């Protein structure tokens, strides 16, 4: 009887990971990001959400390694006197959370609808796939910008900034479900004809059970590969939306809204407010993309091309 850990150690995945230095580094950095954002309240030297801890006299201090740096603020402060390091830690937490939650929503919708389309077939399949085609032909960014802009105009900026985090997850989550649905559907169509599915049906198992327990496990590999890319894309989308002022508000910033807030000051030489969150964001996305590439090479799934 082998434990899960031993089985993991003997898997191809572990073998390939052991041989690829770049993948190890990327995984390491990603884990670091995840831990930092989970433990942000513990790690951050200041609380950026607490207005009483912010002193306007501390504003626009450059990072420590520059002239005029202050040892209290490693990365300097922004125009309101917030500690940039703390704000970035909290911002990464928000960005990562929105990315992961949005992808979970995509996963849920895409897998369910893909399974139904493939398993039921016929008219249901035709309608669902047509909707997926049409939705894919519109860019996610476009749809997200328009939907969020309209909600912001309807709710007013005040109320909207409270709801922003849910709106972002919902919009990014709903916009990209066809990615999963197509892949899952392709698997279902291939597996449905096989004998084990017939056997399961003959024993009288209910359709949902057959779909989730018997057919779905065949598409775990492509789902994993798609998910990495999707998380990176979701984080980019969130950053772009926040940059446009349609995402997280400035008093509860994600990395995108931090960059947006800093952009106003770049002309007066306060480069760090934009650049440091920018680098943090790019490294996060890059690491996820590289991991996704690596996973694709290692697992080599049959991805649905379209």
């Amino acid at each position, binding site marked *: 009887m082998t434990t899960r850990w031993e089985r993991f150690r003997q898997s191809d995945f572990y073998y390939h990971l052991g041989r690829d230095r770049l993948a190890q580094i990327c995984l390491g950095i990603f884990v670091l990001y995840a831990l930092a954002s989970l433990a942000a309240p513990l790690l951050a030297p200041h609380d950026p959400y607490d207005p009483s801890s912010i002193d306007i006299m501390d504003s626009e201090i450059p990072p420590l390694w520059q002239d005029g740096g202050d040892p209290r603020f490693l990365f300097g402060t922004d125009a309101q006197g917030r500690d940039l390091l703390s704000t970035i830690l909290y911002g990464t937490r928000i960005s990562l959370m929105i990315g992961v939650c949005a992808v979970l929503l995509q996963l849920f919708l895409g897998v369910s609808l893909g399974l139904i389309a493939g398993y039921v077939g016929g008219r249901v399949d035709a309608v669902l796939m047509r909707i997926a085609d049409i939705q*894919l032909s519109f860019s996610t960014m476009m749809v997200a910008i328009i939907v969020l802009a309209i909600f912001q*105009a309807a709710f007013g900026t005040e109320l909207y900034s409270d709801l922003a985090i849910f709106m972002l997850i919902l919009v990014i989550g709903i916009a990209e479900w066809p990615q999963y649905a197509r892949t899952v559907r392709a698997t279902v169509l291939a597996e449905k004809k096989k004998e084990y599915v017939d056997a399961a049906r003959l024993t009288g198992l209910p359709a949902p059970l057959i779909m989730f327990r018997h057919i779905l496990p065949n598409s775990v590999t492509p789902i994993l590969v798609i998910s990495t890319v999707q998380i990176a894309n979701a984080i980019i989308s969130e950053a772009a939306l926040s940059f446009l002022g349609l995402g997280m508000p400035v008093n509860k910033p994600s990395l995108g809204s931090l960059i947006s807030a800093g952009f106003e000051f770049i002309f007066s030489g306060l480069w760090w407010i934009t650049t440091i969150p920018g680098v943090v*964001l790019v490294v996060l996305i890059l690491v996820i993309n590289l991991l996704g590439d690596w996973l694709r090479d290692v697992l080599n799934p049959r991805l649905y091309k379209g």
Partner: protein
Amino acid sequence: MLRFLLRRLAQAAVVMLVISLLSFSIQDQLGDPLRELVGQRVSEAERDLLREQMGLNDPFLVQYWRFLGRAVQGDLGDSYFFKRPALEVILDKFPATFELVLGASVIILFFSVPIGVYCAIRPRTLFSRLMMGASIVGISIPVFLTAIMLIYVFSIQLGWMPSFGRGETVDVGGWQTGLLTADGLWHLVLPSISLASIMLPLFIRLIRAEMLEVLHTEYIRFATAKGLSRYRIWFLHALKNTLLPVITVGGVQIGTMIAYTILTETVFQWPGMGFMFLEAVNRVDTPLIIAYLIVVGLIFVITNTLVDLIYGLVNPTVQLAGRQE
């Protein structure tokens, strides 16, 4: 072919109908048109009368039908802010956005095809690996960050490039173009590069992947065995089939590019449709928002339909509807 065309047109019409229905319900929900037209001082009774006259008390579908009738004639209402027909405002801004997309497309085409093909033909050279590495970095940098960094380096630090606006434009038959003046072209450089930066790596990777696949097919091996020159095989036989999927993806990406123009235009204060749209949102200028929605929806639908048609024409193996019978 005709059936295929008709089916695609029908689908396009349905999509446009859905967009118009959505746009109209937005207009219905967002703000009170009466308050925008008359001031606060008009009495309640007069308001009711006006509302009745304007047909604002009619059922939703009746109002929608009227909206649709006017929209087909190009009347999408007047912008609250500009006090001019919304469609006219949008079309004024269209050239700026079009030229931006054109500039970016030229950059993408000019670089992606040669680099992608080279990376497929010689996958193991240093340059190829460097390009593949650079492309994944490129994909990971959000478009607005590229734009900000370009501005910071080339406008603020070096002072070589203008950081905002279109520069000098000339009027060519009602089309304000920046392509004919040196100043206008100079202003176009940074925004075009920013807009291209998100798509270029994508296309390089796509062309490389497709080309690699094509190079492993039977007919290429046959052509080699026949003794055709390598260049003839690469650029005549292989490239032709490589570009097929590129057409489909390219069509979809044109839509995505329009979305990204909103970001690029915001950073560079480029006076195009995207920048105007965000301003309209901030001012809750409903007719303008709707006009933008419909114009952009139309661009999406037209490009997608065209791409499908071109694909059907170019690719002999594609299953056109009606050919099965």
